[in-house]
Each structure stands twice: as C-alpha cells, then as structure tokens.
C-alpha cells in the first residue's frame, strides 16, 4: 500500500498514511468489535434467559445500546481508591488493552490483509496475548483491595498454566503446514472445507477442542472467569474500577476473544477460505476481482471469528464456574496431556502418510505444497554448488517439505 501512495506523495507521507490507515482499521476492529460483542452478549444472554435483552436504544433491536453505555461510562466519575497505587492503578487498563490490540497486528483478515506481515505470527500472537495478564495483575495489585489482589493472583496462576497447552495446540497446525506465518497457513487451506486443518486427521479434530478450551481459559471467560468471579471476589481485579477505565478491561476482553477465535479460524477452519471455493477463480483473475475475492474472504474470516465468540458467550451463560484448583487441574490433567497426545498423534499421522479427507475429495490440493520459503531455493542452490553433506541434508529437508 505504501508503494501505491508513494506515487502521489513523498515517501514519508505515504508511509505515515499507510500506517495510519492500518492503525485506524485495527482500532475500528477493537472499538466496533467491543461495541458489537457487548451488544451481542446482552442479546444472546437475554435470549438464553427468556428475556429480550436491550430493545429500545437505537431502534428495534437496541442496536445502539453499547454506544449509549459507552457514553454513560465516559461521563462517569473516574475513581481511584485511597489505598491504591495511583500510577499503576491508572495505567493497568491500558496495559491490559495494549497487548490485546497489538495482537491484531499479526492477525490476517484475508490473504495479505494483515497489519504486519511477520513470519512467526502464530508464536507472536500467542506471546502477546499472554502479556494481557499483566494489566490484570497490576490492576489487582494496585487497587489496594483484597478482592482485587485475589483476582490478580488467580489470573497469574491461570494464564501461566494455560499458555502451555495453548502453545502446544498452536504448534500442531504449524508443523502440518511447515510455517509459522498465519497468512501462509490460511492460504494452504484453500479449496473445499475438507482441506481445513481441523478435518486433516482425528488428532487435529480433537486438538481443536483442547485449543478452544484453553483459549476460553486464557481470555478469562466463564467457566474460567476466576479473576473476576462475581460470586466469590465481588468483581475481582476490576472491583475498584469505574467509568472508562473499567470499560477498557472489557474492550481488551472482547478483543482477546475475537483474536483467539480468529486464530482458531485461521489455524483450524481455513481462515478466509470458505467451505466452498467460490472465489478461487476471482482470486486468480487478479486486479479488481482479486480485491473483491479478498473482501469476501475477509467477511468469511470475520464470520468465523464471530461465530467462535458467540460460542464463548453461549458457554458463559450456560455453565457454572470452576474452582481455582479445578481450573489448574483441568489444565495439567486434561489439557496438557491431551494436547501432547494429539501432537504426537498428528505427527505420526503425517509421518505414516495416512490419508486426510482432502486426498480423495480434491486430488490436487490447492494449497499445502505451494508454499516455498525463499531460503529453500537458496538451500537447493547451495546444495547443487557445494554438494556437501549438510547441504544435501538440507535439500532433502526442503524436498520433504514439498
């Protein structure tokens, strides 16, 4: 995009403009996403509970309810308790929101529609989502309230434990595709739904559920919402917060939900590639058609991610909360061993070249082997030139990869 703008203006301006557009778009995802998800949560919860949810504000379905809430929150007094560590208390919501927002940087919305094309984006996403916990811990500590402190401690224990199985689940699609780049992983699942990694083999199917459980736990949603556990800790880490600062925690929470669901969509559900390859030919046509195809892909991706968020909402309004020791045991006793088992299983499936549904449905898979990282070619060149054992090994590696 920067090159495109550079034709019309100085280079620095083009760069700035590009950056601004990306930032604005991602901020819109955070802001509008939070508005929509809070509204959706209230509507879905209402329906689950035989109520209507918001109905008046903004017309028939209470569309503007979240916006009205937002206005109310902005006008509310921003209180800090007397015992609080003022500086950290004020900073904590931003510390919570920033990583959640930064995670969107590396999340591709369609082929190439990504804020920052980074080769290790799966890893980066998981890493930066883990940082969100700092905001919660700081809020818990700085509030000067014991309930908040409990919330912060619970969150610390929970997130550190759940990062392990979450990472293990994320690794499985990574090694199936041979890359950590989300864009590449998404593109490799082009074609029919059978090419989605969740249907690749029984182990990936199983690991998706482990991933989803851990994702719910890592974004602190019921039944793992121990840090805010209303009936035990009043409101946990955000007990003492009010007004806009309070709402930042919620923006961070909903955004993280969107990010983990989006990650699930890319890792397991083909990302922007629909169950039916309608736009494949458009994409190939290039030019304006390509943009249309990408737009459709983007909507497809957002739809999948929103679906994930909706499932989380559904779960929240259905299940009771676990106890802290049960949360940790669930992680250590079930999630970690299951993830490890699926890891080994999926590895074995791949090594034994066992079939995946795509093999007989579309004999010429669209994606999988198409990705060649640049170094592979250089490695092949080098192997030709030198003929040394190490390079040969590398060439063989590259061959396997194909």
């Amino acid at each position, binding site marked *: 995009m920067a090159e495109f703008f550079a034709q019309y203006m100085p280079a620095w301006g083009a760069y700035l403009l590009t950056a601004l557009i990306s930032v604005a778009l991602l901020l819109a995802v955070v802001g509008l996403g939070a508005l929509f998800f809070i509204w959706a949560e209230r509507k879905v*919860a209402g329906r*689950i*509970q*035989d*109520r209507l949810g918001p109905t008046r504000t903004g017309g028939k379905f209470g569309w503007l309810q979240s916006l009205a809430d937002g206005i109310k929150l902005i006008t509310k007094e921003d209180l800090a308790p007397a015992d609080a560590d003022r500086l950290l208390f004020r900073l904590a919501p931003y510390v919570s929101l920033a990583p959640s927002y930064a995670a969107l940087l590396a999340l591709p919305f369609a082929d190439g529609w990504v804020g920052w094309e980074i080769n290790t984006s799966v890893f980066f996403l998981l890493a930066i989502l883990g940082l969100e916990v700092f905001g919660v811990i700081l809020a818990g500590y700085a509030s000067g309230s*014991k*309930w908040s*402190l*409990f919330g912060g*401690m*619970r969150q610390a224990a929970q997130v550190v434990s759940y990062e392990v199985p979450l990472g293990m689940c994320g690794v499985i699609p990574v090694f199936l595709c041979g890359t950590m780049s989300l864009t590449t992983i998404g593109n490799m699942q082009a074609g029919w739904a059978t090419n989605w990694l969740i249907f690749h083999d029984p182990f990936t199917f199983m690991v998706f559920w482990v991933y989803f459980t851990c994702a719910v736990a890592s974004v602190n949603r*019921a*039944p793992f*919402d*121990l840090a805010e*556990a*209303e*009936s*035990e*800790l*009043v409101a946990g880490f955000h007990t003492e917060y009010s007004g806009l600062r309070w709402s930042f925690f919620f923006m961070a929470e909903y955004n993280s939900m969107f990010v983990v669901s989006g990650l699930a969509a890319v890792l397991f559900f083909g990302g922007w590639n629909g169950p039916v390859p309608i736009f494949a030919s458009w994409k190939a046509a290039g030019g304006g058609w390509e943009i249309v195809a990408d737009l459709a892909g983007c909507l497809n991706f957002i739809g999948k991610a929103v679906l994930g968020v909706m499932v989380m909402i559904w779960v929240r*309004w*259905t*299940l*009771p*909360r*676990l*106890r*802290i*020791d*049960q949360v940790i045991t669930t992680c250590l006793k079930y999630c970690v061993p299951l993830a490890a088992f699926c890891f080994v299983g999926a590895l074995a499936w791949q090594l034994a070249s066992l079939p995946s549904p795509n093999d007989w449905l579309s004999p010429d898979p669209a994606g999988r082997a198409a990705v060649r990282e640049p170094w592979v070619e250089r490695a092949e060149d080098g192997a030709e030139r030198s003929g040394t054992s190490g390079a040969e090994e590398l060439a063989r590696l590259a061959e396997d990869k194909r």
Partner: protein
Amino acid sequence: MATANREQIIELDVRTDELLVNMGPQHPSTHGVLRLVLKTDGEIVTHVEPHIGYLHRCAEKIGENLTPRQWIPYTDRMDYLAAMNMNLGWSLCVEKLLGYELPEKARHIRVIIAELGRIASHLVGMGTYGLDLGTFSPFLYAFREREKILDLFEEVCGARLTNSYITPGGVTGDLPAGWLEKCEAFLDQFVPVITEYHTLLTTNAIFIQRTAGIGVISREMAIDYGCTGPVLRGSGVDHDLRRDGEERYTEMYDGYAFEVIVEKDGHYPRDHDYPPVPPEAVLGDCWHRFYVRMLEVMQAIDIVREGIEFYRASSGDWGHPIKLNTKLPKGEVYLETECPRGQMGFYLVSDGSAIPWRVRARSSCFCNLSVTEELCRGCLLADVAAIVGSLDIVMGEIDR
C-alpha cells in the same frame, strides 16, 4: 457414598501472608447482609466468623406491643421468600393458645398455599445457588416459574411477596373462583421445567465438582447445631415436622400421602424419576442439600395436587380470622412448623390480655448458619460461597 471420617489434608505449599478479608455485608454471594470475616492463607480459608444483625428489626420487641393478628405482617418480613409459611407458623401458634379448631376447607387452603410457598422458596434457593456457583441463567429460569406462583398468590390475597394471607383463625379469604384450575395449569407446565434445572445444575459436571464432597455436615453435627429442614435431611436425618411435629401441625396434613425426603440406603424416596446420586457426592454435602430441595419441590407439587382434590371435596367455610383485639388466655405455647428453610418456631407468652407478653421467633436459618464457622474452616475461598449458598439462608429470618 457414605464415607466415615474422611480426612482431608490441605497443603500449604508456600506460606503466604494471612489476609483478613471482609466478605460482606455488601457482597454478591452473602444473600443479603451477612458479613463473614475470613482469615485466608492464599486461597485457603483458615477461619470464618459470621457477623449477623445487619437486618435486625426488633420484630420480637414489636410483637410485645401488637396483637397477634397485627403481628402477622412482621412474620412476612422474616423469611420474605416464604412469607406464607411464616404466617402459617404464627397463626398455628396463636390458634394453639386459643384452642381454635380449624374448619376443613381452611386446612386444605393452608396446605395448598404453604406447599406453593415451599416451591417458590426452593426455586429462589436453587436459582441463587446457581448464582453462587457462577451460572446466571438458572436463576432467571427459577424466577420465571416463581413469578407464576406469586401471580397465584396475588390473586388470592393481593400481595406478591409479603402476603399476610394465612392468619389466626383461618385465612383472610377463600380461594377465588377459577383459581384451582390456574394452579393446576401451572403445576402441569412446571413439572417438565424441573428437568431443565436438573440438566443445568443437578447433573452438570461442573456443578457436581463444585458441590459434591464440599461442606459435609455429618448427621451428628447437623443435629448438634440444631440444623433443620433440607440441611438436616440432606445429612440423612429422617425428621420432617409435617410428619413428626406436634399434632396441631401434623393434623393439617392428615390424609396427605407423602414421604419424607431423606436418603435411605443410598436412595431417595422418589429418585426413580430423578437423576441418580453421583458417586462423588457424600451424604451431607452441598450437593445433597441441593438435591433434597429439588426433590421437595417435586413432593410439594404432589401435595398441592392432593390438596386441590381435598379442597374440592371439602365442605364448610374457609375459617374466620380472629378479631384484632381477641383476648388471649393466660399461658405460654411453643410451636414449630416445617418451613422451606427449616423448622420455624414461635413462642408466645400471654398474660391474659390481647397483647402477648413475650413473642419469640426461633429462626431456622439462624441455626443453619451457625454451622459455617466449623464448615468453612480449611476450605477454599470459592467454597465459602458454595457452602453458604447451600445452606440457603435468608437474612431477614436470621436477624428478625
């Protein structure tokens, strides 16, 4: 299922600082204005001290200045979730002093109303217990049904919460025309709804994990602490005043067929059409208390159905409330009734005037709550909410 002397060792792997935490009086899971002062070591609660009295409204002192009928509204405000049953207890106590014989029809009205009150009360108990464990939806499902019962109450007496319907000498008015049909219609649609509650709570894996084996009150402990109602029966004590109480109360249930909901040899009387007891559950734990309540709802439905039949068959009138200034004979009486939350007792001392010399209300929740101190020692912070919730207390009744 019944394990004796289960010993639990709680390990404190890292010694942390002891925190003194004030749970309540404003706390989401203390059911009103209960204040628990907790000493915790990390998440483990080492000491609990309940502080009550935040809702003390001097009901007993007020009772010394009012005639028995005037005091009826004050009984409403004790257990405001089962106001009808409170009215009933006080009315029976006054009638016992007066030696009043109740007409047949009034007796059946009272049974119907009292059992509906039991259902309404247990629905709140169930719903708020869900809240304590972090699930919101069953609470609203419970209130949805409770509202229908309150609608029925409203039709009978004009009030939904503080009914003052049952009164010494009978009730304040006959059941309105067509009410019985509405009541039956309600019961018919209510029975299948209970399955929902069982799906969402009783048989839910997380619910069982959170309640089974938690807060175990042994038989002896329950009796020793004076626990009554579902808390007592949840510990396996076969004691229900509707069957074992004194005659003035039990004769109300003459002709009604019901079994006391208590576990015998691993089985509850009605459990053929109910989810089985999970293997993790220990007799006397939170799960059993909850389960007893759920079964009592079902039992109350049957009693109401019977009551409706009896009412239709009965003749006579619905009783005559005593005059406001009826002179009470000199003497003293004590009467306990089986209210939803336990045995609610009223003690009335009369010096021969129309106004009692002394009125005393023996609160069931008061005794049930006194167990927490021993029960919560060594449990986790989250269990405190689960345990206190399973006792199903109403602060209005405790503080009076």
